[in-house]
């Protein structure tokens, strides 16, 4: 199968859609049209490619992990999104959306952020394109990611605490949507994952497709074809969608590593929140539950609708990883390869460490979605 255009209805099988207040419907329709036209426009594509190359530092390399491969008994390759400007894959999407927002005549970006990576990336693009920027971040996350809060302010953005509900990513999304409802005429909502109303799940996946497209070529060179396994961590699921898009039509096993405390697919109950229908952690009455994860970036009770579709059709599998396993994996990659991963990305490492017996001798491509600098304070507290 391929990861296809979900049409103007934004449907991935039974999932997706555009469940937003009427006020936002025209903006979503306008965005669908603008993205379609830009994505088909060679001048837009070449401007974005130029930025990705000269500003973000693409293509990101693939690193063959000799030490870790020996330890785990499978051939481990890392797609190095941690080496991008701003330290994660988030910049791919943000440069695309900011360029599109400019093209649409918007003057301000609003974004939500969990760990702060998407917030920093959005603030970066806003600085580059001389746009105003407002970032909503849960009060709890502001506390655990102080450095990223300072980075966003340094880049000229306003950071607003989301004080409602669980005060994490889910609530930051609520507040960003409320802000967008109030300012839709001059503001673009720069959503940070493959979630939300159509066209976001599709558009964000397309902006991250570059990860998978590059990796496919790189694997062709290194392995002579697709790897046996492609694994990525999944909160909303943007880095996973990006790398899966390059391999969905191959025989590679696609794996999303979910935090055990936020395993939306693992629970497999469909729901509607934040603009789309997907799997959602909720109680028996449809009240959304709070996810719990060591990594702020994966602390989200839902998952992008296309992932729900990939899970429902069996094309991808989604596996839970515990916080304790993530802490081990964080240290494992640091010590064996000299690469400190983001806690989010460490979920993917943890999964293959768990599942290595099943994949002995196989090639495993891991999307290393971000670097761990932002997490060392938190890990210092945990490990000392």
């Amino acid at each position: 199968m391929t990861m296809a255009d979900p049409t103007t209805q934004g449907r991935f099988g039974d999932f997706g859609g555009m469940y937003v207040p009427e006020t936002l419907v025209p903006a979503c329709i306008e965005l669908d049209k603008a993205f379609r036209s830009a994505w088909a426009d060679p001048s837009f594509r070449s401007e974005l490619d130029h930025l990705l190359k000269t500003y973000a530092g693409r293509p990101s390399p693939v690193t063959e992990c000799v030490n870790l491969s020996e330890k785990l008994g499978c051939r481990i390759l890392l797609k190095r999104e941690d080496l991008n400007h701003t330290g994660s894959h988030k910049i791919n999407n943000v440069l695309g959306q900011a360029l599109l927002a400019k093209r649409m005549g918007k003057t301000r970006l609003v974004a939500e952020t969990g760990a702060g990576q998407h917030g920093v990336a959005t603030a970066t693009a806003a600085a580059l394109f001389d746009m105003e920027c407002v970032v909503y971040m849960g009060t709890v996350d502001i506390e655990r990611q102080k450095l990223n809060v300072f980075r966003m302010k340094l880049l000229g953005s306003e950071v607003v605490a989301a004080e409602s509900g669980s005060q994490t990513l889910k609530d930051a999304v609520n507040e960003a949507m409320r802000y967008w409802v109030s300012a839709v005429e001059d503001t673009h909502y720069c959503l940070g994952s493959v979630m939300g109303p159509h066209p976001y799940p599709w558009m964000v996946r397309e902006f991250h497709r570059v990860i998978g497209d590059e990796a496919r070529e790189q694997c062709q060179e290194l392995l002579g074809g697709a790897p046996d396994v492609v694994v990525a961590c999944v909160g909303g699921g943007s880095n996973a969608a990006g790398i899966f898009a390059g391999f969905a039509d191959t025989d590679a096993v696609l794996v999303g590593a979910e935090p055990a405390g936020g395993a939306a697919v693992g629970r497999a109950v469909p729901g509607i929140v934040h603009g789309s229908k997907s799997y959602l952690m909720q109680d028996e009455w449809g009240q959304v539950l709070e996810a719990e994860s060591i990594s702020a970036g994966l602390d989200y009770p839902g998952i992008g609708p296309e992932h729900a579709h990939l899970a429902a059709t069996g094309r991808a599998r989604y596996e839970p990883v515990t916080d304790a396993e993530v802490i081990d994996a964080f240290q494992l990659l640091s010590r064996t390869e000299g690469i400190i991963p983001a806690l989010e990305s460490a979920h993917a490492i943890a999964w293959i460490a768990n599942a290595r017996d099943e994949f002995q001798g196989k090639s495993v491509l891991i999307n290393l979605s971000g670097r761990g600098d932002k997490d060392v304070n938190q890990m210092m507290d945990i490990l000392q």
Partner: protein
Amino acid sequence: MTGAIETALRARRNDGGKCLVPYLTGGLGDDWLETVMAVADAGADAIEIGVPFSDPVMDGPTIQEANDRSLGAGTTPQMILDALRDADIGVPTAVMTYANVVYRMGWERFMNELSATGVSGCILPDIPLEEADDWTRAADHAGVETVMFAAPTSPDERLPRIAERAGGFVYAVGLLGITGVRANLASSALEIAGRVKAITDKPVLVGVGVGTPAQAVEVSAVADGVVVGSAIVQRMLDGAGPEGVAELVNEFRVALDA
């Protein structure tokens, strides 16, 4: 078939009056149902009863807090429906909640429950036309009126489709923003009311940003009436009790009748 809400609102309009539909959060305080009764007696033409949801994206701080408090007290959709089933309110009611609360129970089951409970209408702010089919099919079958929203951003071509699909009334969103009381009525309120009135004979009520009797009167120069939410819920949060809330509703009634 015209439902109870539309019938009541048309009757008010035919008498030369303006419609008043207060919103109250269900399960907010032990006396919320008494408050509903008192509000009915104070001159409401119909009443919106909020079924709280954990992530109400169309709502501002006041109704968010009401949702959180109600959920914190253990309110479930079933508890609200059960309470309404035994109540003789005297005016038609609509339930307002968000898509997932209905979807979780099942579109058909929820609409059938509303019907069996004697609730006439349903309002779901995160279900636009594009996603309305499952809901409206179940609602039509159960005889539940489906209130639809028109927003200042809705282009002209959408308005007739919204009005045609709407049951009970067309809910015209008064401003670009979420629910809450503002110091002044937005000019967009009169504008959207006029645009919707021009294309439908169904009752057109303006809500979101209508927080005082004076603002209600101002917008009702064009609209058929108003939905008042946050101002009333704030009274509930402040502990005004059924009489205190009814007093405010009566102020709106008197102003609209003057």
